[in-house]
């Protein structure tokens, strides 16, 4: 039975690795400027974790095969190097592995979060609420008018609670239910939640960031490929959580200019 067990462990270990090696299910294609660093980090981690996984499982299986049900009279043997050797191996091998992953991973993280947005980054405001995203563009003046929560009225499509009668900066603001951005242009996404926690996740964009009620957060990114992508919510926000989504359309600058004009006309 021990030998069958050993073979089973090896088959499971190899079987588990096959879809990874074959890329049967993979991360969606990256469309961001910062994504390559994340993808590189993921690949390095997969290589190191994969080797550790296979080596440990195969070693476990081999020892079960070799040392189970021994003949009578067999004496206990000890691993050469003993526990000290294993502790040193763990510190050196795993220690160097995690140090490398930590340092390079920090670099990838810093590229996303530590660099401020460029001065000419295009601001877009996003509001999350049960169970929809809404987007606001500042219009020609480049300024967002203030939000008045007491004026939020979904029946009148005033999702953000903006006051176009009294607030000069709000008069040209453009509110949409879908997000469009020009390709190769840095976007400064200003995030807030109207009610509970939500999240903004666009796998292709390599961006995931929670909305935190009471906190105004922002992220910035540049999309490099024209196309239509899904924005999904990843923070459990209530019964409609699974269905809370919007589309992100990455367009050429010309298409974007036309789109924003059309949206302005609809306000």
């Amino acid at each position, binding site marked *: 039975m021990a030998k069958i067990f050993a073979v089973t462990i090896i088959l499971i270990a190899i079987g588990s690795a096959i879809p990874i090696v074959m890329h049967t*299910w993979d*991360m969606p294609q990256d469309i961001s400027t910062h994504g390559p660093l*994340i993808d590189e980090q*993921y690949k390095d981690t997969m290589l190191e974790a994969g080797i550790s996984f296979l080596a*440990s499982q195969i070693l476990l299986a081999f020892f079960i095969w070799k040392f189970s049900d021994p003949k009578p009279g067999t004496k*206990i043997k000890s691993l050469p190097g003993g526990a000290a050797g294993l502790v040193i191996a763990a510190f050196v091998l795993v220690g160097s592995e995690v140090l490398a992953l*930590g340092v390079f991973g920090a670099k990838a*993280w810093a590229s996303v979060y530590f660099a401020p947005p460029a001065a000419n980054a295009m601001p877009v405001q996003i509001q999350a609420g049960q169970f929809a995203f809404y987007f606001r563009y500042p219009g020609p003046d480049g300024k967002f008018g203030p939000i008045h929560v007491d004026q939020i009225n979904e029946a009148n499509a005033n999702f953000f609670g903006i006051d176009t009668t009294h607030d000069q900066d709000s008069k040209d603001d453009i509110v949409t239910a879908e997000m469009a951005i020009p390709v190769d242009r840095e976007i400064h996404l200003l995030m807030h939640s109207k009610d509970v926690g939500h999240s903004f996740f666009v796998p292709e964009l390599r961006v995931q960031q929670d909305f935190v009620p009471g906190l105004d957060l922002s992220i910035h990114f540049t999309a490099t490929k024209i196309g239509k992508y899904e924005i999904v919510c990843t923070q459990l926000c*209530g019964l409609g959580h699974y269905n809370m989504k919007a589309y992100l359309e990455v367009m050429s600058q010309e298409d974007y200019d036309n789109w924003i004009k059309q949206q302005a006309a609809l306000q």
Partner: protein
Amino acid sequence: MHDVSAHAVHHGAPTSFIRKHVFSLDHKVIGKQYYALALVAVFVGMFLSWLMRIHLGWGSFAIPGLHLLSKTGAPGDVMTPEYYLQLMTMHGTIMVFFVLTTAPFAAFGNFFLPIQVGAEDMPFPHFNMMSFWVTFVAFLVLVASFFVPEGPTLGGWTQYAPLSAVGSVGGPGQGLGVVLWAASIGIFCIGQLLGSLNFITTTLDMRTRGMSLMRLPLSAWAWFITSVMGLTAFAVLMPACILLILDHVAGTSFFVSSNEVINGQILPHSGGSTLLWQHLFWFFGHPEVYIAIVPGMGIVSHVLITNMRRPMLSHKVLIYSMGALAVLSYMVYGHHMFVSGMNPVSSLAFSFPTLVITIPSAIIVLIWLGSLYGSKLRINAASLFALGFVSMFISGGISGFFLAQPSIDIMLHATYFVVGHFHLVMGVAAMFGIFAGTYFWFPKMTGRMMSEPLGKLHFWLTFVGAYCIFMPFHYLGIASNVRRYQAFTDDYLIPLIPVHKFITVAALCTGAAQLIFLYNLIHSRFKGAPATDNPWEGTSLEWSTATPPPHNNFGDTMPVVYHDPYQYGIEGASTDFVMQTSPEQIKNPNEEK
């Protein structure tokens, strides 16, 4: 080390049924009560997971009789989106608290810690009785939420604020359901705090003559380390639950900020912090992962040593490594919050200790593997589950490499990758520890042997089945399949639905295999072959007393300990092992220097 006579806990053997089996002061009865509670809880939790998996595989399928559970949650026997979330929340809460914390720590620890240290009982038997009964009440309070008008909370076992704090305006179950959830967990914390106090005092103050700390078996060390974590972690969760209840019933705003608008109404809260809940919860939540798994490490080490017929390569290194896990577990909790909106510098600060915690984890695994080398491994249901634990812990632990790094977490956070990771490492591995402990200690607990053929059949189906369920979770996560969705309507998720169907079939089959275990457990309890005092030829104190142990554990004479706990492979001795209580002089070639 103390003379136990100075600390003996004298309570005479009970005579009435109530004091013997219900409100018992005997740690062994309390241990069995915890086990029975965990057994009920695990089948309830598993049943909920079956319902969820059927819904995820075939969303429009009418599950016969489901409307009996909830008319509004399952009209026409088809689950509503909110009912899916409610079942999911209850599944997670029941499994984490009432199974993974209760069985390996409170059940086995209660039964065996006093015996392994050589004590008559725990030092505070009334606290011990109370710890079980408040845990029982906590379970009833949680289950009661199924029967209140809107049903249980749908906020997930993590109960993130402000969804959990805004009341029923947040959705079905977010009013009374959350209050019952928080009350249940708050009460549960009281039970764990009382239990932890008893475990710590038992270990430090109740050891018999000759039982130095380093002569404690690894299982006793694991329970001791876990109890220290329990004392500090549950002490944070309990007040967090009280604050959450106050936000519901007293108009406070601990977890709700100003100007939140739901259903067109501005909520009457101001000034609270939604991230505060996450900090409080995960300060408990990450040590909780180790509260679930460290007892399993101790149990599995104990079972493996007995079946390898040799001590571990280093007793001390394993103890220090488990201790390191406990200490580091408090420094890593922020890795649950990389994309939560906390300061991104904090993410890096939490990332490094998370990566470092892989070192003691790797040492523990390497010591297990290195000790298998040159051993004389006996294969039985207990050792198979112990070895299965090692395999599962490796598989589940290694995916932690990914989640420890904030840059990769951007892609994997809140996906099925995380679900696969924690199910393998703290769910399945911990369950394998519970199974290993059950097959190993059942004879001592009941006086009867379990069926080995049924135990092995149970192992094979569970081992292969668990991998079939939880490995594909990782692939789904890599493909950005978001968790906590009751249906997959996004364009990019639709191609992944066949994988979910496969997982559902695997989950149903693996769950059904657990009925073999249940049958074996109940049948053996009454009809199993009588067990001898030391059926596995073990060395620690539980094997030197009668099977099952008498009321005061050791009869008239308290044991005296002469040796380290694992004296196996002794040359020149009549057997290949020498018990801790044997006064014979020995020279163990495998002894640690």
